[in-house]
Structure formats: structure tokens, C-alpha cells
């Protein structure tokens, strides 16, 4: 009965995601920390699925992080977003896809606010004209890039070389999914599955052979908190929230974590390293951590891309135990090589958590 109830709720929160022709905007955080994930998104959409995804060099930040750090007024972030929409309009697109969850939340908040307060939209149009001599149409469809991978999850499964299955036991891997707060907590109807039972990542896990873990703090924030991370004095907030999540998921023995937000995989990965250094505690098997992935990294892994082309060497928590569990081959000696196998040395190994 409970499962059927959840299914009903999911069916109430399905969004329309067009098949093709998207205007793509990059993420402040992902470009820095998970650059290969953005590359893989384009690779999957264009070359695996044959879709039209357009990017323009002139687009910029949406201003979302600065806005949520309270450093710019709301009129400023709205006008930056209006400029992004103008670039989409000039390029002849009407479907808008953002790489960042906070951007997705920011765009949603702004579009909803303009719907509620048309005089504010008119004011922003005037400000954009004054600053940039640009005009815009609002997107017909707004999506987060995880929405697109979700939509095509079964096509990806059909082309997959690997499944999220333990090759020794044949059992599905135990997968924690973590949804970025700004995906659906503000506007539940804008995310696949809503805020309480978001299905965007669970759908990928199920299609690719894994089992979704339900645990008490599943919906708790990763602890980014904007100013609570970017100001050094506040980072105790950030690690405390990550710690709370790991303590809660630990009894369920997750094999891996999949995320759809730019910041969450960084914090869930790096704070495991810090917890190990501070307290000697690790959450994976045999002194390892629990590897944390973006959804593009997981899609790339099941499609059979080289793990080092996916950027998995930039994780602090070792991914090799999971690759071995699935049966994905990799070259240990190439992990930290540059282009054309250029030797660029190796990182030091941490003392509290096992790494390669």
C-alpha cells in the first residue's frame, strides 16, 4: 500500500521534458570541480543520443550563488537571468537546460515570481534593455540536465556495457541518491517526482540495475549552505550536516552515492576525507570511503567510458573498489596522467582514508 501511495504521488509530479533542441548553460561549481561531467553530458546527448544541445560562449553565471550569499540584490540576479534568456532567444531556442541545481531553482523562482508579479518582469525587461539593449522570450520548457538523462535513462540502459550490479554476487548495488535542495524543495511541481519522493535519480538507478536505499536523513541538505561554506569560519556547519547524513546512511551499507547537484558530490566526497582525518572514521568497506558520483559519471560508467575520461581521478574518495565490484576495467598507472599520458606527478595519499 505504501509503495502504491508513493507511485501515485510520483505520477502527480511528472514534468514535460521535450525530446530535443536545448539551449545549455554551464554551472559555476561543476566547471571547477566536475568539468568532465559537463563534457560527458554533451557527449551523451550529442553523440550517444543524437540530440541537438547548443551552447553559446557569451552565457555566464546565473548569479545564483552570489544571490544566495546575499551579495547582490534580487533585481541584479533577475536581470542576469533575463540576459541568459535573451541569448537563448537570439539563438532561436525555446527549451532551456541548466547544468546547476541552484540555477534551476533560481530560474524557476524568477519565472514564478514574474508570473505572480508581472510589473516586476516589466521592470526587469526595462533594466535589461538599458544595460544590454537585449530583449527576451521566456523559455517554453525549463529543465535541469539530470531531467534529460532521466528522460533517456532507458535508452542509455539499452546501450549500456555495465549494470549497477555486483559482478561476483549478481546482486544489485545499494545506491544512495541525493537530490540537491533547490531542485524541488522550493517548487515541488517543477521536479520529477516532487520534493518528498523525487524520482529523477531513483529512476536512473532502477533503469541501470541498482537498488535505491531509503534512509532516515535521505532528504537532509548536504550542508553547502552558501555562506556557510564560502566563509572559512563557517565550515563547521557544512561538515556537520554531511556527517549527519553519513551516520544515518551507514547502517544500510551503501556501495555508492549518486547526486544531481554540483556542490553536493564535492561536499559528500571531501567531508568524508576530513571526517577520516579528524576522527579516523570511514564509512565504506576496509578503510575506504563511500564513492560519490554525478549522474553523468554514472551514466558514463555504465556506457563503458574510461573512468579517467570521466574525471573520477579528481575525487578524494577512491572509486576503484566500486569499479572492481561492477567489473569496469581501468588502468591504475594512467589515473593521474595528463593528455597523451603526460606525467604530471601524483597527489599525496591522505592518512585517514584509503586511496590510490
Amino acid at each position: 500500500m505504501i509503495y502504491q501511495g508513493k507511485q501515485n504521488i510520483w505520477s502527480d509530479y511528472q514534468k514535460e521534458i521535450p525530446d530535443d533542441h536545448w539551449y545549455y548553460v554551464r554551472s559555476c561549481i561543476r566547471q571547477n570541480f566536475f568539468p568532465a561531467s559537463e563534457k560527458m553530458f554533451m557527449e551523451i546527448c550529442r553523440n550517444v543520443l543524437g540530440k541537438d544541445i547548443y551552447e553559446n560562449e557569451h552565457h555566464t553565471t546565473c548569479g545564483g550563488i552570489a544571490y544566495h550569499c546575499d551579495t547582490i540584490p534580487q533585481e541584479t540576479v533577475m536581470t542576469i537571468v533575463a540576459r541568459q534568456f535573451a541569448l537563448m532567444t537570439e539563438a532561436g531556442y525555446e527549451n532551456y537546460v541548466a547544468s546547476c541545481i541552484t540555477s534551476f531553482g533560481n530560474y524557476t523562482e524568477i519565472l514564478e515570481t514574474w508570473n505572480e508579479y508581472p510589473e516586476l518582469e516589466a521592470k526587469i525587461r526595462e533594466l535589461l534593455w538599458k544595460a544590454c539593449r537585449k530583449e527576451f522570450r521566456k523559455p517554453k520548457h525549463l529543465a535541469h540536465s539530470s531531467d534529460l538523462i532521466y528522460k533517456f535513462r532507458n535508452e542509455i540502459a539499452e546501450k549500456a556495457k555495465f549494470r549497477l550490479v555486483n559482478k561476483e554476487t549478481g546482486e544489485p548495488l545499494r545506491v544512495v541518491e541525493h537530490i540537491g535542495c533547490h531542485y524541488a524543495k522550493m517548487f515541488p511541481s517543477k521536479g520529477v517526482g516532487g520534493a518528498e519522493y523525487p524520482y529523477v535519480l531513483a529512476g536512473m538507478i532502477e533503469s541501470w540495475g541498482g537498488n535505491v536505499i531509503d534512509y532516515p536523513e535521505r532528504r537532509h541538505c548536504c550542508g553547502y549552505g552558501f555562506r556557510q561554506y564560502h566563509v572559512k569560519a563557517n565550515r563547521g556547519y557544512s561538515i556537520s550536516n554531511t556527517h549527519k547524513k553519513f551516520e544515518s546512511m551507514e547502517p544500510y551499507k551503501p556501495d555508492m552515492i549518486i547526486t544531481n547537484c554540483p556542490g553536493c558530490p564535492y561536499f559528500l566526497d571531501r567531508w568524508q576525507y576530513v571526517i577520516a582525518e579528524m576522527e579516523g572514521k570511514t564509512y565504506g568497506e576496509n578503510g575506504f570511503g563511500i564513492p560519490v558520483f554525478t549522474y553523468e559519471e554514472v551514466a558514463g560508467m555504465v556506457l563503458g567510458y574510461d573512468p579517467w575520461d570521466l574525471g573520477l581521478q579528481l575525487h578524494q574518495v577512491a572509486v576503484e573498489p566500486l569499479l572492481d565490484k561492477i567489473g569496469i576495467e581501468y588502468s591504475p598507472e594512467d589515473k593521474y596522467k595528463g593528455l597523451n599520458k603526460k606525467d604530471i606527478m601524483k597527489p599525496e595519499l591522505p592518512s585517514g582514508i584509503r586511496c590510490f
Partner: protein
Amino acid sequence: MGKLYDLLKEDYRVKEGLNTCINCGTCTAICPAAEFYRYDPRKIVDTVQRGDDDEIEALLKSDTIWYCGECLSCLTRCPRKNGPGLVIMALRNLSAKLGYFVESEKGRQLFPLTRIMTGNILKYGYCIHPDTFSWEDHVESGPVWKWHTEHLEDSYARQGANFRGKGPGILREIPKESLDELQRIFDVTGATERIGTIEKCSEAKAKEMGMTLDEYYRYTFEYSSDDHFNND
């Protein structure tokens, strides 16, 4: 109702986020900040809806409004469809605008934050950039990130980035005409004026505290007193 309350009510985030709070405390129960800091969003919303200007002014000058992480988990769960997080954002905006932020330790952090965020947007077109995300200020990013920053060009090339390059792609150089447009957006929408307010008020506070502006920057970025936390 007072002048500060009227200013807050002009903000659409208060219009949308405050529809008669019933003080049930669901927001506090779900709040990641309330678990860590001595912080209670229910009380903040209650103070604002009472409309007493003296109480609101005290709030605008306090550490309290700066504890929230703006995850907005409270919006999902409030049975009255309030948004305590949105009310906090409006309070912070007013505190910055009026220069009240310098009266609290957490408020003063707006100085380094503004320099980092607005500086990055106007110079690089994004809120975060490798040139200003130093490993020394982010040791939690681990030895792998130290290695990455020591081999930045090679590491980003291996990841498929167009680092500092022309044309589209990851971490490309944003064309000058686009950066100029961002500057003009800042000028006409109040961001440039806001940066000026933050700088001017912080400069005065640094002088009052007997520090140079550079010392004040490091101090506000790094120092945390012990009286913010729940478990102390």
C-alpha cells in the same frame, strides 16, 4: 507597524513567504542550521510578523539572521505555505542595504563574501573560478585538489576543459563584451551601489576595530567566536 516593517513588506520574498505564521515550529524542526547554531527560524518569522521596528532593527543587527544556509527546506514543509528562508533573505538584503550588517560577527562576513562573489562574476563571468579558489583557503578539498591546482592547465586539459580558451566550453574565457554587459547590469540594478555600501561600511568598521582593511578581510573570513553553537 513601523518603517522597517514597511520596507520588508515591499520585498516580494516577504509577500510570498509570510502568510500568518501559526508558530508550529515545523521550519525549526526541519532546519539544518537550527541543529547546528543557536537558531530558531520560527522566532524570526514571529518577530517579523509582530511588526515592531525596535525588534526588527535588533534582528537586522544580530548574528541570528546570518545562520541560515538558504537550502529552503522550510518551504516544502510549512503547513501555511510560508517561506522562513525567503523572509531571512529579505532581512539580510535590508541589513546589507542599511549597513546594519557590520554590527554582528556573522554579518561582517558579508565583506569577504561580496569581494569573492561579485569580484569573480565581474572578472570571470562565474561565481567560482580556479584563480580565486586557493587550496590554502580550502584545505578540506584534500591532497587531490592540491595536486590539481599545482597542475591546473594539464589537469583541466585532461578533463576536456577549454580553460582560459576562446569559444564555448568549460572554464572558457568569457568575451569582454559579455563581461561589460554584466558590469552594466550591476550598475543599473543596484549591485554596484550595494558593493559600495559594503565596502564603505566595512572600511569604517575595520577602522573602529583598529585593523587595516586587509587584516579585517582575513579576520572576518576566518574568525569564529564560540558562542554561536548549540552544543556549547
